[in-house]
């Protein structure tokens, strides 16, 4: 079943076509990688999916419904969560509070319920707390729950972003360079984490320049260059694609 379907998506900034007639599908339950040279338009595609930018033309269908024109928070409610290329945590708030932010859209009680602390409201608060701690446990940050986000190491901040995204109970999670700034050991742990996200039935779409990671976790890859799709296929196919090698991978000189 196709979960996310992107068709003829285009976005320009001034005269620059950042994304040019891109189409691809993401099957439910798969892990798909979006790769390409710097400035190819990968992050822009993510921003178009999550409603941070509006496309000039083209459609984004999620679960059969169009996402174009919807505000970001509605898209999150529909079931797409994301992480950011440059980390965007609530830096001065605690790790737990960061994850609670993700749970927000799955809660209902409003300001009046809060003031009068109705039983439903209390139950809901407790439940979201429990879920947040469970997500922290999942990414391995439970012991840091009181710490301020900005005091976490870079790698842990990336994990916290993932926990926050998971707390929105997504069907699809989009990760923008999750391994950026991680060393080999940490990247290795991340691969395991991404696989267990998949095991929870969540579909993953990710951007990554670390080929080791991409080749190991992705079931299929989409390659962009200059805003346009130049290739798609399994990791093995892509790795052997001369065009991709020329534009993106480069020839291995010494390995």
């Amino acid at each position, binding site marked *: 079943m196709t979960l996310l379907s992107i068709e003829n998506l285009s976005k320009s900034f001034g005269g620059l076509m950042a994304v040019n007639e891109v189409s691809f599908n993401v099957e439910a339950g798969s892990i798909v990688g979006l790769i390409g040279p710097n400035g190819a338009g990968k992050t822009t595609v993510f921003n178009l999916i999550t409603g941070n930018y509006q496309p000039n033309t083209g459609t984004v269908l999620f679960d059969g419904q169009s996402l174009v024109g919807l505000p970001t928070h509605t898209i999150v409610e529909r079931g797409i969560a994301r992480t950011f290329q440059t980390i965007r945590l609530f830096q001065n708030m605690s790790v737990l509070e960061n994850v609670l932010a993700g749970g927000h859209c799955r809660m209902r009680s409003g300001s009046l319920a809060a003031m009068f602390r109705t039983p439903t409201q209390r139950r809901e608060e407790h439940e979201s707390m429990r879920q947040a701690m469970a997500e922290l446990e999942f990414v391995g940050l439970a012991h840091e729950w009181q710490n301020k986000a900005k005091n976490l190491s870079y790698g842990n901040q990336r994990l916290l972003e993932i926990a926050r995204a998971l707390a929105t109970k997504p069907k699809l999670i989009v990760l923008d360079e999750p391994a950026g700034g991680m060393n*080999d050991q940490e990247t290795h742990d991340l691969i395991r984490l991404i696989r267990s996200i998949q095991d929870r039935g969540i579909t993953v779409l990710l951007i990554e320049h670390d080929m080791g990671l991409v080749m190991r976790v992705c079931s299929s890859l989409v390659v962009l260059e200059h805003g346009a799709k130049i290739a798609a296929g399994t990791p093995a196919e892509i790795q052997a694609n001369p065009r991709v090698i020329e534009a993106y991978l480069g020839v291995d000189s010494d390995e």
Partner: protein
Amino acid sequence: MLLKIENLRVNYGNVEALHGVNLEVNEGEIVTILGANGAGKSTTLNAISGLVNITGGSIFFRDTALHKLPAHEIVKHKITQSPEGRRVFTTLTVQENLILGAFTSTNTERIQKSLKWIYELFPRLQERRKQMAGTLSGGEQQMLAIGRALMANPKILLLDEPSLGLAPILVKSIFATVKEINKSGVTVILVEQNAKAALKLAHRGYVMEVGNIVLADSAANLLINEQVQQAYLGGGH
């Protein structure tokens, strides 16, 4: 000896991040600093650049006590940095960013020459020279940050994770460039997550753990060091 750091201590608020770091760099070397997240690598570079206040120890550049100088004076000794998180001037154009890299220089001819060189190094930047830096893609910003640090024709170049966010093909070319400029006489201190590549490039390396230097050796030795292999070279699998 070009740069000599002795017993360097740095505090963030009440927390000590560096507990007495000793580090030496000889002229013409590429020295790499390895270490896990939060080990204090960036803090060490920032201490050299004068961006963080140091609470103890000394940093000497030849005979100049850098630890007594404010950041903007240190740059005048031709020590530049491509910082973590890129920190490009988001609402200035690409070209303005680059020109600022040569702020301390008054020789316009020289500046133009450097500019040309950077544009040859990163043709993408030339294409985008009038675009605001903040709207560049992540990798493009990284190129800009490196280019900006090179604009001043540094004697010592501090690179904090230069390959972060760059496409594999560019990572290769960046490392090639570093090698090249090092050959032209620039001393380089390189902080990298990609430890293998860094050690292949460097002459010597240091390994940091929670604010201390725990290992110092030639790069070749470090590459085969068991401990380093375990922790940083993905030797576990």
